[in-house]
């Protein structure tokens, strides 16, 4: 290949050819932190050979605020609103993971209605997270705006539900140790049922939009292949792991909440490429709709918070606990050590999207720069959680 670069002074200087400039030379490019496709302030130092990625080193920390130290300096309850800001797309899941860990640490039971509400809200969170992820991913591939707006339209309906229940669209701060903060009335449940019933219609339409699309197939199939062995060793979790065909879902394995009461399937991929990861989200949304239908049918009136769990002067006994849930992005865990005081001695977040980035370099090697964006989009990261 020897494309000629024409310059204004072409008359005076001999023409410079691409091949003479780039052949055999490696070019280092810093992608990000201000880049529309990096989903926040994420930076990659990419070494390129022509357009092929030869080395890729992610650089973190632009959004680092030492969340864990803040958690160690505030009370147990005071950390709850901060968890909203971890993965700001899925504040309900973050709340649940944190509440679950503290409940393990202090041995608090959760009433039945609260568990149902938690399942409903976590699955609604999964719906809106996956829907917007699909929109963003298509946006990264060049389908600017349109699919993203369709996804955001559905997401907005779910966020309206969150707002009318928890008071805020994204920073819900809804769960409390031993239950939930506000009870959902019948109107809210009816509204949720309506949205859940209509959601498959959106899914059908969205799948029609992207599934057979030749451009999507060309951009995603056989791009960023991840083998099951590497995925397990690198601690990949969530849809990204299941896209490689590994059947591991914390909802089934741990059976936390009331998930064993619901009938649902775990979609599994085969090739572990970007297309499988994309489809995994679409299929998981269908299963979430199934769970939601069952949960909304089974929910019974009752107490929503355990009266034994105190709001003020909450001091769990000395000990440690690791609690985890299947957040939309993967396994979200909280590791807490209590020394008997009002603050945790150690407060650790296991961020799924941060650990899922471990294999980013392996996925991108040998692909072009344009594929890096697609692969990164399919990992599904949120910088609030990656940098903490």
């Amino acid at each position, binding site marked *: 290949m020897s494309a000629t670069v024409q310059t204004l002074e072409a008359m005076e200087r001999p023409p410079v050819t691409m091949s003479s400039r780039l052949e055999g030379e490696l070019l280092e490019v810093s992608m990000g932190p201000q880049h529309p496709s990096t989903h926040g302030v994420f930076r990659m130092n990419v070494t390129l050979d022509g357009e092929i990625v030869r080395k890729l080193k992610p650089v*973190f*920390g632009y959004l*680092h605020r*030492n969340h*864990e*130290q803040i958690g160690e300096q505030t009370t147990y309850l005071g950390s709850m609103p901060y968890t909203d800001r971890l993965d700001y797309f899925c504040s309900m899941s973050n709340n649940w993971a944190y509440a679950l860990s503290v409940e*393990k*640490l*202090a*041995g608090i039971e959760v009433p039945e209605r609260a568990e149902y509400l938690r399942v409903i809200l976590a699955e609604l969170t999964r719906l809106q997270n996956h829907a917007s992820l699909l929109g963003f991913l298509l946006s990264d591939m060049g389908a600017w705006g349109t699919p993203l707006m369709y996804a955001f339209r559905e997401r907005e309906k779910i966020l309206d539900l969150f707002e009318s229940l928890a008071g805020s669209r994204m920073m819900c701060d809804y769960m409390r140790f031993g239950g939930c903060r506000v009870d959902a009335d019948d109107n809210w449940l009816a509204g949720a049922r309506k949205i859940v019933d209509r959601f498959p219609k959106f899914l059908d339409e969205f799948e029609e939009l992207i599934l057979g699309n030749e451009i999507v197939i060309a951009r995603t199939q056989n791009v960023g292949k991840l083998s099951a062995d*590497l995925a*397990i*060793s*690198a*601690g*990949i*979790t969530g849809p990204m792991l299941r896209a490689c065909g*590994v059947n*591991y879902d914390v909802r089934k*394995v741990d059976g936390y909440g009331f998930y064993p009461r619901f009938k649902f399937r775990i979609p599994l991929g085969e090739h572990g490429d970007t297309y499988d990861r994309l489809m995994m989200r679409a299929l998981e949304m269908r299963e979430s709709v199934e769970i939601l239908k069952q949960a909304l049918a089974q929910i019974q009136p009752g107490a929503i918070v355990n009266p034994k769990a105190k709001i003020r002067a909450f001091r*769990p*006994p*000395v*000990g*440690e*606990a*690791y609690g*985890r849930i299947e957040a939309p992005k993967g*396994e979200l*865990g909280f*590791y807490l*050590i*209590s020394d008997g005081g009002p603050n945790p*001695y*150690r407060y*650790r977040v*296991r961020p799924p999207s*941060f*650990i899922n*980035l*471990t*294999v980013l370099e392996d996925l991108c090697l040998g692909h072009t720069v344009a594929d890096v964006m697609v692969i990164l989009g399919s990992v599904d990261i949120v910088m609030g959680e990656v*940098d*903490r």
Partner: protein
Amino acid sequence: MESLEQIKARAEAAIPGAKIDIVPNLGPANQPSLLIDNEHAPAIAKFLRDDPTLRLDFCSNVTGVDWLDRVTKKTVKVKKVVEGEEKEVNEPIEERIPGYLEAVYHLFSMAHKHGPITIRMRTRDRGEGARLPSLTPVWRSAEFQEREIFDLYGIRFDGHPDLRRILMWDEFEDHPMRKDYVQPDDFEWEPTPHDDVLARAKQHYAPRPAEQELRPS
């Protein structure tokens, strides 16, 4: 799944010289952990990963914990010569437990779907001896998380492929998650209810005393 005692016995039998202690956890969560010795840690980790009944192939969470020097007060009966005769006297003694840093690994099995098994390693001290063997060669998922521990706690992991700071910038010197970390006082201050922050910031930016500036250099 096997109990921790069984795992300990089998691991110690499989790896000659390995020493494993069980750290109890008194809380309601009841998740006790295995304290493994640093020298044999990679071998023990490999055993836990590859043993057919355990198959702990998924290292979910890796984190550091900082334990400062602790002083525990005890009363011990001591034989003493008091006024010419030997007596048994209760004497309070202070036992000083030197501080250490800890790395905690939460292991699960994707093959057998069990877990967690918690293993922990302790450094010799909090200063120069804060070194541990890296388990990244065994579980790739520890790569970024061990870097994070190195960054925030200052444990050096021997054998880590790429041990650099990850969240803080490279020029940063301290380890901000340590319990004795002192926050810098050069805040951009502004009128807020944070009185102590404001006071510290004002102190930081206060003009130097006049005599100091007048002193001939």
